[in-house]
């Protein structure tokens, strides 16, 4: 049976702690769209058609590589189910990957709205507190320094959701308490 990507994302939404869903609804970040488009080009088209301006070419190119995208001006999460990263996956693996991307993007939505200037400025310091493998992923993916905090919140938020799905709560032992507190404060995580 072919599993429906939109159903997976809907389930990922329902799996969020109820308080987090309320928080996302309060900041108008409860809409998503699963599509089969390069996300930079698609987001640019949506922005133009909504009279919200156009994305710079460089941003379109960056976003075209993305599996998921939070578009703050339109208050929508976009997920590209035709991205090559999702090719050939069995149903459980596709469910894991799509859910993880959706949780990451909702983490982005919370971080971009709620992180303060001090949080953003401290991005590099927070990155140095992450386990090496995770920090390496964020460094190598080509994010700007001012994006580090948002990426950290989004990644940790997604991993905490997986942690929660496994029936575990609290701070995982590998996660530095300062980063955990950042995610609690910015994303409202209280599990």
């Amino acid at each position, binding site marked *: 049976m072919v599993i429906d990507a939109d159903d997976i994302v809907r389930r990922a939404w329902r799996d969020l702690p109820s308080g987090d869903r309320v928080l996302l609804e309060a900041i108008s970040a409860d809409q998503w769209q699963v599509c089969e488009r390069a*996300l*930079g080009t698609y*987001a640019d088209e949506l*922005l133009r058609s909504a009279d*919200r*301006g156009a*994305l710079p070419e460089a*941003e379109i190119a*960056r*976003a075209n*590589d*993305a*599996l*998921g*995208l*939070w*578009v*703050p*001006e339109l208050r929508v999460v976009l997920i590209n189910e035709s991205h090559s*990263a*999702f090719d050939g*996956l069995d149903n459980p*693996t596709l469910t*894991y*990957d799509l859910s*993880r*991307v959706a949780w*990451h*993007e909702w983490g*982005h939505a919370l971080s*971009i709205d709620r992180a303060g200037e001090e949080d953003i400025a401290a991005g590099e310091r927070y990155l*140095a*507190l*992450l*386990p090496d*493998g*995770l920090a*390496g*992923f964020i460094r*190598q*993916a*080509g994010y700007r320094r001012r*994006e580090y905090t*948002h990426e950290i919140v*989004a990644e940790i938020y997604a*991993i905490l959701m*997986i*942690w929660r799905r*496994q029936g575990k709560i609290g701070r*995982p*032992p*590998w*996660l*530095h*308490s300062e*980063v955990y507190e950042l995610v609690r404060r910015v994303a409202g995580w209280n599990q």
Partner: protein
Amino acid sequence: MEPMKLPAGYRLPKGTTMADVRRLDQELLASEGHEAKGHKAKEGRKKTPPADK
């Protein structure tokens, strides 16, 4: 007029796949005994128990 807030995306580093992401997730989530960076240093060295007489 405020400048446009740019989209924030989830991208993989060149040459990596979601399988690498899943592997890293599993390593982290399985590492129950692994302390976060810096925590041990803050807590100080644990005392070595006295040797049995």
